[in-house]
């Protein structure tokens, strides 16, 4: 009888204590790595949005600034149809510069957020000297 019990124990799978210990060890290892995964997922999403915002800002700078009349327009706002991101472009005179030079400030943000994803500042000139 004793021999049968011993044989059955030897062939048995992992005991409850062994499984619990393994699960605990894996959980301990997963806690710090899960934080890393969460941080990287957030950084990845932010990077994707920032890339889209950069494309929108550069497109505004290279296409829209040339197309709008400097004298009458002080700001342009809109929503990018592809991404849903909102943009605002403000043109202002620069003290000490001829009227043809404008300070251009572009900010791109998520519709719900007040803080912009990116903000670009540069000067643009429409006239020739």
């Amino acid at each position, binding site marked *: 009888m004793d*021999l*049968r019990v*011993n*044989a059955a124990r*030897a*062939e048995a*799978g*992992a005991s409850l204590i062994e499984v619990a210990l*393994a699960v605990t060890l*894996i959980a301990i*290892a*997963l806690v710090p*790595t899960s934080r*890393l*995964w969460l*941080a*990287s*997922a957030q*950084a*990845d999403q*932010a*990077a994707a949005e*920032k*890339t889209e915002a*950069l494309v929108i*800002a*550069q497109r505004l*700078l290279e296409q829209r600034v040339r197309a709008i009349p400097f004298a009458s327009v002080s700001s342009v706002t809109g929503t990018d149809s592809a991404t849903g991101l909102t943009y605002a472009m403000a043109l202002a005179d*620069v003290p000490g*510069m*001829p009227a*043809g*030079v404008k*300070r251009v*400030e572009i900010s791109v943000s998520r519709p719900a957020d007040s803080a912009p994803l*990116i*903000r*670009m*500042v*540069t*000067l*643009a*000139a429409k006239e*020739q*000297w």
Partner: protein
Amino acid sequence: MTERSRKRRSPGASGERGATLLVLALIVFVMLTGFTLLAASQLKHAERVNAEYGNLQARNAAEAGIYASLATRSGLPPTVLSADPAQVVFESRITPPAPGGAPYWIASTGSVTLAGFTYRAQVSAFVSNGSIREWTFE
């Protein structure tokens, strides 16, 4: 089951269990390593996007120096374009210094300090008859 057969089977049974545990441990290790590598590459990608943002801002600042010098026909000392949240500065010079009506070059440096990093860009423009004829980006 005899004493002899028990002694023969026990090492085999515990060996199988050990092998199963080893395979499971390897699977967990490979999965953890893979996910960690993926997370590291995502963080690196985010860093590169931020660097690209800084480089673009610096180039726009340098272009601002070109337009400012084109308008004033003179080199400009370091000029702050924006101070918050990023420090955006440009500086330009023209060659020859007093071009008169002759063609001339404008060289402009833009710099942006963003989250503790400073990004720089250099842009040159060749001006003839009041118009930019050539751009050079470095």
